């Protein structure tokens, strides 16, 4: 225990603040929560790793699970998430720890309550009574760490604080469980409640437990303070526009970013001279000089701009499999600083579009987002504009999104408008950069729409000019020439 009087005080204050903010906080301490889900399992051993080395927290929970039901095979294992954190949960996957095969995870609607959200994990094969299986659940949690202190000076080290549950939250009683918290650097301070829980601090690790016979939905609170350097990249809003041109065999992509560094805010003002003397200081502090993103290998006409024009500070590196784009904002981004930009490029459609032979059906496969590492995306809009004449459009995503809208857009020389898919999503991270499938029908005759429209337009212009050249508005004088 490395508790000092002041830090306890601080911790208590923070804990108090965090508690008053959640309505159900009182219940944390007072009574035992009873899970709603059928108690058909028992956890014999559970290991949880909480990785705080990046702004996005990765939690890996590996549980050995035993079917305790007398005679029934079990397929549904429930994984609870505190409702207070459900907005922070960006991504969840599960796998069989032994066979490494992924398991299907769905948000449960049946056992819904105000305090816990359950995720239903479907076992690949029904588990007979008394048998055991090992399940690993990986979750990615965003926006859970807070800068403490909230303001730091230029090149000053930035510290974060994390509040969490010292116990792994389970829907079933656990015979034994242990949590390891990994931080990027040495752990600075740890506080926990209830204070009787075992806790060991080793360099950049905090080991909580092992605890024996932990109740289901057991919770307490612990706090860890640690240093985390660099920016906390956060995209407030991302608008990604993908335009398909079957005529030009082109896929045009444009992404608009509204960006903020959520690291500790810069104390006072920015000094260029200090920055120039110690440009590396930014790495230890709360600033960022740039970001990297990957573009397809065949991308061309790459541009990087913002509201007032081209940003001349980017660089492109051709890698064997992709193009590395180094995006450097106009100014170094310190904590709390904002910027916006947009990038765009063209790439041949070949690799993305497949026609199902013998039918008019086309399948477009594009990544939903092109991720920047460790970045959280708050509000994402993906617009896919299909060629004019595309019908029966259907978009399929491997994860749940807020909304999928189908509409039409009119752009260059369109007569009927192009089918457009708009996907609205929130709280995305790198892991969401999976393929988005869009299925649509596009007949051969639709290829002719554009040239016909263009020809008609030209014809109209010529016809008008012919008519006009024959009009004569003269008053007086002879209308006959010569």
């Amino acid at each position, binding site marked *: 225990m490395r508790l000092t009087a002041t830090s306890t005080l601080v911790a208590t204050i923070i804990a108090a603040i965090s508690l008053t903010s959640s309505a159900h906080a009182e219940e944390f301490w007072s009574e035992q929560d009873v899970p709603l889900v059928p108690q058909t399992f028992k956890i014999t051993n559970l290991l949880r790793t909480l990785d705080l080395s990046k702004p996005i927290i990765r939690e890996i929970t590996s549980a050995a699970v035993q079917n305790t039901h007398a005679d029934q095979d079990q397929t549904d294992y429930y994984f609870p998430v505190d409702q207070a954190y459900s907005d922070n949960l960006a991504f969840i996957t599960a796998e069989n720890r032994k066979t490494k095969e992924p398991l299907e995870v769905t948000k449960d609607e049946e056992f819904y309550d105000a305090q816990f959200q359950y995720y239903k994990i479907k076992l690949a094969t029904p588990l007979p009574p008394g048998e055991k299986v090992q399940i690993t659940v990986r979750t990615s949690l965003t926006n859970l760490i807070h800068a403490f202190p909230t303001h730091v000076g230029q090149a000053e080290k930035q510290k974060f604080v994390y509040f969490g549950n010292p116990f792994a939250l389970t829907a079933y009683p656990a015979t034994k469980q242990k949590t390891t918290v990994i931080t990027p650097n040495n752990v600075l301070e740890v506080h926990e409640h209830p204070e009787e829980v075992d806790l060991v601090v080793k360099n950049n690790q905090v080991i909580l437990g092992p605890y024996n016979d932990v109740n289901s939905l057991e919770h307490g609170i612990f706090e860890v303070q640690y240093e985390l350097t660099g920016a906390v990249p956060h995209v407030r809003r991302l608008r990604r526009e993908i335009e398909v041109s079957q005529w030009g065999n082109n896929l045009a992509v444009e992404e608009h970013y509204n960006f903020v560094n959520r690291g500790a805010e810069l104390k006072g*003002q920015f000094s260029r001279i200090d920055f120039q003397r110690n440009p590396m200081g930014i790495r230890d502090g709360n600033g960022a000089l740039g970001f990297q993103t990957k573009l397809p290998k065949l991308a061309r006409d790459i541009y990087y701009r913002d*509201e007032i024009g081209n940003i001349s500070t980017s660089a492109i590196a051709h890698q064997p499999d992709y193009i590395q784009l180094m995006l450097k904002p106009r100014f170094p981004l310190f904590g709390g*600083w904002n910027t916006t930009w947009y990038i765009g490029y063209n790439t041949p459609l070949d690799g993305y579009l497949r026609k199902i032979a013998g039918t008019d059906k086309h399948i477009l496969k594009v990544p939903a987002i092109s991720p920047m590492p460790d970045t959280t995306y708050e509000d994402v809009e993906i617009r896919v504009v299909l060629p004019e004449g595309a019908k029966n459009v259907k978009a399929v995503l491997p994860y749940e999104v807020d909304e999928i809208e189908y509409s039409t857009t009119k752009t260059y020389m369109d007569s009927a408008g192009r089918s457009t898919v708009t996907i609205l999503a929130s709280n995305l991270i790198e892991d969401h950069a999976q393929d988005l499938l869009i299925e649509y029908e596009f007949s051969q005759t639709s290829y002719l729409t554009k040239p016909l429209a263009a020809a008609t337009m030209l014809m109209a212009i010529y016809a008008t000019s012919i008519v006009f050249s024959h009009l004569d508005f003269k008053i007086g004088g002879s209308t006959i020439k010569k």
Partner: protein
Amino acid sequence: MEKLESLETESSMLMAKRPYLRKEIQLLEQFAAIMSSESSSTVARVLKPTILILIAVVAISSRLFSIIRFESVIHEFDPWFNYRTTQHLVKNGFYDFWNWFDEKSWYPLGRVVGGTVYPGIMVTSALIHNVLHFFNFPVDIRNVCVFLAPMFSGLTAFSAYLLTKELKDSSAGLLAAAFLGVAPGYISRSVAGSYDNEGIAIFLLVFTFYLWIKAVKTGSAFFGLLTALFYFYMVSAWGGYVFITNLVPLHAFTLLLMGRFSNRLYVSYSTFYAVGTLLSMQIPFVGFQPTRTSEHMAALGVFGLLQLYAFAELVRGYIPPKQFKALLKGGIAAVVIIASVGLTILSFSGVIAPFTGRFYSLYDTGYAKIHIPIIASVSEHQPTAWTSFFFDLQMLIFLFPAGVYLCFKELKDEHVFIILYSVFASYFAGVMVRLMLTLTPVVCVSAAIAYSTLLDTYLETSEHVLASTKPAIAVTPATPAVIEAPTAATSETKVAGKKAAAKAAAAAAASAAAAAKSTEADAKAHAKATADGEKKRFPIFNLDSRMLVILQLTWFLFMFAWHCTYVTSGSYSSPSIVLASRQQDGSQMIIDDFREAYYWLRKNTKEDAKVMSWWDYGYQMAGMANVTTLVDNNTWNNTHIATVGKAMSTSEEVSYKVLRQHDVDYVLILFGGVIGYSGDDINKFLWMIRIAEGVYPSDVKETNFFTPRGEYKVDHDATKTMRDSLMYKMSYYRFAELYGGGNAVDHVRNARMPSEGPTLSVLEEAYTTENWLVRIYKVKDLDNLGRDLKDSTAFDKGRVRKVSSLKKK
């Protein structure tokens, strides 16, 4: 090629002796023949538009250097305001734009944009934008704005063609179009991204003049009306419309003096003035000026004079000459007395406003420097250096007088106009650099007249015919072939002489200017001219002497094109918000500090942050940084600008009061000392001081900024006032530290700076760009403990300062 036959037979005998010339002559003739035949009108009909389109393409593409080199971006200062207002117009619609009160500029006064702006260019772009969007072309408004001036330059070239065609013929017209398309004098204000009023105004100027000439020539009310409509468009687009307002009446007046009053003039001028003036008054910024200011009085006067003259003419028809004379005398006396008394009374009572300062400075170049430093401080209001005439117009400048001379020779109504235009435009261009722009079209037009006359003379193939008709004249040692020409041919060709000459003359003229003239009418007109010319003109027979001139003229054309491209690319295609330099390995390095600072302000200051800077950057800050500015390039309030000048040039304590009074959050300055950018604020500082002194003579004194030896210094020798001024402190704050304390050198002024830099107590550095070009300071809030900011800063700095100050005591 059958059409060649006739010509060939005529010349074949001459050619027999000098076969080696045959080929050259033949080429010329072929060229001519194509044009001269009956089918020529069809060919010309295709060629002329093609050439005009090509000229437009050249005009547009030569303005795209900055796009190719940098990007599609709005340039300089004023265009940023136009761009911002256009965005507002496109976003909020016309009526909102018309009633727009911009509270983000001239804080805390604000600006009524709708009433203080020439809306022509914004409305034009918005219209193009909306039409394109109506047809589902989602073109960004920025691109419309960037490409507007080049597009209009194509139209300008076309109007130059029309105008010159009215003066001479279409071959001269094509030349004028080509000249105006690439003349640097016009390109300087119409490159892509230079989204300024002049971009469309020059087109309107030339086109209005064309319509005016057409109206005077035809006496058609229709053309008079068109002139008025385009005059209205011009009024809505540029303050330079006053040039038309005065030049057209002057033309009418001159014609009157020359005794050339005609019904044509009466109809066209009356239509133009009545409709044009009423229309121009619809622009809120112009309002009642046409009836109230001296600048517009000439037009009104001429209008009245024409009415009286026409009335007198009418009366003359009904009254016997003797009585009419008496009546006329009485009438004139009465009118003169009434008019002069009326004008005097109205002027003194203030109904008619006197000339504005900007106008006075056109007559006396020293006027502005003494009375209105704010006008003199603008570089484009400086008198023109003589070299810039050549720089902007190259060979046109020496063809120009020749063209004017040729106009004198013709001296029809329209030529009088060109003469007047050239005289006045030359004067104004000499007074103000910026007015080079109005001179350029007339220079191109008259140079084209001169050039095409030269070509007409030297390319005329009719000489053979002439030679055979008048062999006596043709005695020159260089043409023995002509002398030996058989006289038998003489009588034969004499009959056909005139006809053939006409035909061939037309052909020659056609081949002259980019080979595209001679419609039926032109050919006829020229035939007449040549027929007269047979008496007047001394024909040039010698191929060598012809070639000498032609080749030289062609060479001039090449040089001209080369010069224009060179000037455009080198001097007029820099967006000025981005600076480019070459690195040692030859790669381009871009210094983008302005946008770095502006974008930082845009994204990382609060929505209503007030930023003080010198007025030069006002428009850019409003456009790019989207912050509230105190003063900007619309220099309408001298006192406000002087206040900013005072804040910049006084000591911290004095200027802090000014800053607090104006709610200033940030102060932005330009400092070029690190990279040697000479257009920075320390170099402009003297103007700030001068303008501030004009309003606050007790706070700011220019002499205090000069060393006893009268030098403007920033180094060790800088005066105390200089070193205490806010501008100096902001510029050199922590500058010496960049050089590790010693040997700090200001690269603009080549000054070695003291190692101990200035200290700031009422401001704190908020942002400095990568190359230190832009420095932004935050104005500190009042001290929490009620201390003086100087004391509190000293206290924060710690013991050292305190102890040293104690020691002094």
